[in-house]
């Protein structure tokens, strides 16, 4: 195992990684911007290096500063967390060039999955079912039109360099296509410096199911079950759960099997997530893979009892996979709610500020991952995720009741501070969600229907469509 690991991230995931390292006896180096000098991980880590100003591109997105910090402190490996440089193939290469272990897949694998069009090609070769759409990138609006006519509307145009819900546009009719094609190209160029786009059929009521995989450097791979992340707003996840509810065991097995096949086909290493769309008929199609630890990884940890960050570290240190597939036991159900410093009543606008009160929930089968503490100043510079509340129970219904209890307990207050907790409670209250019959359309429906006075109980909401 490594002697010392540098944590190239901030917020709750930096704390999460510091905890895993300490449990394994690995010393930690935190890096931080001048905006984060009071952050929890700086206090927790064995060492901390100030690497830049608040602006991410000069600090948490600055490979030179991070590698220098690793060199100065003698760290052997870098854990990138999620976001920031976690899926930056160039950074992974820079680490290698400087004799640092990048905790993640090889650069070429990261690069391959970073190019959505190439990822589709690779996964098609690996035999994974793909969502109908353009085989390769679209050279012109006309080409886009042809593919759209084949697969049928609505379609979604995606940037090959996109991901995490950015750089995509849904097109409902041929008349909108040319405009959407141009806009997406421009946006992609501006955002990712890469204007290539492709096109897929858009499944309105599809469910977003993902599979957690673990692979070592020796060709071994296992899956750790599924998660359902359909409760999204503008492609941003709010609630995640596992196992994906309401899907037949054989469908779940088929999806999980496909994910491992895809991972091994490209020589994947470490913890990764393969995302699929599943329609009403339980037909599933690969959409993309994530080469990082994900925000929602605790859902899988609570169901399997496996510490994913521990396994990332062991694998990166060259240890063969420590479990066989038949040793992975899925138990009960887990749910994660993302508590963001946002105001649901004002279009989820960021609502940062000083936390006068911050009392996370506790008690049985309740986990909180957060960098927040009483007196912490939630700044405007970074994403608004403040805490993750994860609960486990023998079955999904009890898990939902437990989450309701946990969110009820969560006491966050400060001038200007608002959180997504009230909206999360509406999701939990929704009849469709409780039945496990929901899709990516759920949150939009709740956003459109105003919260009933005294908080939205399921029966106050329009009865969901069966397909919903």
């Amino acid at each position, binding site marked *: 195992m490594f002697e010392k690991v540098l944590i190239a991230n901030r917020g709750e995931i930096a704390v999460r990684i510091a905890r895993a390292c300490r449990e394994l006896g690995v010393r930690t180096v935190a890096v931080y911007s001048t905006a984060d000098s009071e952050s929890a991980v700086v206090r927790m880590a064995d060492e901390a290096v100030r690497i830049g100003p608040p602006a991410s591109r000069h600090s948490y997105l600055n490979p030179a500063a991070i590698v220098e910090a690793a060199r100065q402190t003698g760290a052997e490996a870098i854990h990138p967390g999620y976001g920031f440089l976690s899926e930056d193939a160039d950074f992974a290469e820079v680490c290698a060039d400087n004799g640092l272990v990048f905790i993640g897949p090889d650069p070429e694998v990261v690069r391959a999955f970073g190019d959505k069009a190439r990822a589709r090609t690779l996964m098609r070769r690996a035999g994974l079912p793909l969502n109908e759409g353009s085989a390769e990138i679209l050279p012109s609006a006309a080409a886009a039109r042809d593919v759209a006519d084949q697969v049928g509307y609505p379609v979604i145009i995606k940037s090959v360099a996109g991901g995490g819900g950015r750089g995509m546009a849904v097109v409902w009719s041929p008349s909108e296509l040319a405009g959407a094609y141009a806009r997406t190209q421009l946006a992609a160029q501006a955002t990712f410096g890469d204007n290539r786009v492709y096109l897929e059929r858009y499944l309105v009521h599809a469910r977003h199911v993902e599979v957690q995989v673990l692979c070592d450097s020796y060709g071994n791979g296992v899956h750790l079950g599924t998660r359902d992340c359909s409760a999204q707003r503008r492609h941003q996840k709010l609630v995640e759960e596992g196992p994906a509810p309401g899907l037949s065991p054989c469908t779940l097995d088929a999806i999980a099997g496909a994910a491992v096949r895809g991972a091994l086909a490209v020589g994947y290493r470490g913890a990764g997530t393969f995302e699929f769309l599943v329609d009403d008929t339980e037909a599933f199609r690969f959409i993309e893979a994530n080469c990082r630890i994900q925000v929602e990884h605790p859902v899988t940890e609570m169901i399997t009892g496996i510490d994913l960050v521990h396994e990332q570290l062991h694998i990166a240190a060259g240890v063969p996979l420590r479990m066989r597939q038949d040793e992975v036991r899925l138990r009960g159900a887990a749910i994660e709610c993302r508590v963001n410093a946002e105001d649901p*009543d004002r279009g989820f606008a960021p609502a940062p500020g000083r936390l006068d*009160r911050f009392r996370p929930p506790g008690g049985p089968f309740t986990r909180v991952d957060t960098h927040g503490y009483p007196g912490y100043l939630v700044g405007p510079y970074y994403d608004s995720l403040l805490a993750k509340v994860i609960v486990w129970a023998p079955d999904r219904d009890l898990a939902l009741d437990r989450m309701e209890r946990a*969110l*009820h307990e*969560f*006491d*966050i*207050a400060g001038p200007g*501070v*608002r*959180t997504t*907790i*009230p909206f999360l*409670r509406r999701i939990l209250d929704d009849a469709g969600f409780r039945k496990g019959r929901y899709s990516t359309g759920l949150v939009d429906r709740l956003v459109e229907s*105003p*919260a009933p*006075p*005294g*908080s939205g109980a399921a029966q106050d909401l329009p009865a969901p469509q069966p397909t919903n």
Partner: protein
Amino acid sequence: MSTPEYDNGVLADLRQQARLLVGEVAGPLRRIQISRGDAVVEIEWHGEHNGARVPAGVPGPVPRAAPVAATAAGTPAGNAAGTPAGNGSEPEAGAGSYSVVSPMVGTFYRAPEPGASPFVAVGDLVEPDRVVGVVEAMKLMNEVTAGRAGRVLDVLVDDGQPVEFGQALIALAPA
């Protein structure tokens, strides 16, 4: 939209506000209504006392800090019972007064038995050892004495009402 995750905090506050008012405001209680939707405490007294409606606004997720502004029910002018209690100042009846409190959780009775005349009435002069009421707990009648000499300003709890430990029962003016 109210913040649902703090409903119980709100209830607790309402209950607390109600308790405070009942302690502060003279007059025999008739009924207490504690709501939640828009967080309302409604307290009704007997006789000429008006009810005091206390809308407890709950700004953001700050239940325990819920401010209480009392306004008279119906009449904009307010009244001796509601308004002063609401804005925290001592009500007339309570000025310099002393409260005989309940020694236990139980049921308060003003009279030795149904139909009998009450132990004390407003205006009575009482000695320290004078029985001013009884609190029944577990079928035992526990006599409550005045504890000090004084004049009965008010009986704060209605006959047969449940009382908490330490709850004010009788308001006395030192003699």
